[in-house]
């Protein structure tokens, strides 16, 4: 059973645009929601993460919006750059139990110059 659904599968934007990637989860026990960025030939790298006690978190040009009642969260990339072109994965876990990360299926982002 897939517990984290991610959309869209792929996304193309122009430089300076604001791509938005959405994720929805089912398990209400999840309490930590990280985003990973993966470049070709590399492993995923932790980008930004949020806990459900806040509705938004910003780190540089990356922002997570979180809607606990809807069980949804999204990643926004402000002023996107060609160097942001990568695959982005959302994930979810129960932070304190040491349980596994459940990943979404990924979004391949292309930022055109």
């Amino acid at each position, binding site marked *: 059973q897939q517990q984290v659904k991610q959309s869209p599968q792929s996304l193309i934007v122009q430089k300076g645009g604001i791509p938005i990637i959405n994720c929805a989860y089912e398990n209400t026990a999840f309490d930590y929601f990280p985003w990973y960025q993966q470049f070709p030939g590399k*492993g*995923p*790298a932790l980008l930004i993460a949020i806990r459900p006690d806040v509705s938004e978190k910003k780190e540089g040009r990356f922002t997570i919006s979180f809607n606990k009642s809807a069980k949804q969260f999204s990643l926004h990339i402000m002023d996107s750059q060609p160097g942001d072109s990568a695959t982005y994965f959302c*994930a979810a876990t129960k932070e304190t139990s*040491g349980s*596994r*990360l459940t*990943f979404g*299926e990924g979004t391949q982002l292309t930022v055109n110059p």
Partner: protein
Amino acid sequence: EAGVAQSPRYKIIEKRQSVAFWCNPISGHATLYWYQQILGQGPKLLIQFQNNGVVDDSQLPKDRFSAERLKGVDSTLKIQPAKLEDSAVYLCASSLDSARGYEQYFGPGTRLTVT
């Protein structure tokens, strides 16, 4: 700080052959994870070690996959015999301990092609 090391980076084998992957986690990280990432999908956890003990191997196909972490540091993942559907990238990750499993650091992965 050195990252998670994996080898080989690429491997091509025929079906029914065996293959082994090696992982060296970040120094001091007690927890080690092996993931399978099929093209176009997110990583799926195969097995999680805490030191040299298995914490979670519920998604490991035990009839053909095995993993060990004998001294609580390096780990190997083996597939025997391989099937076509095993073609994927095998990622190793580590975290300080299981309680900090939300902060995992991934290696570059081994791309396996089974023909």
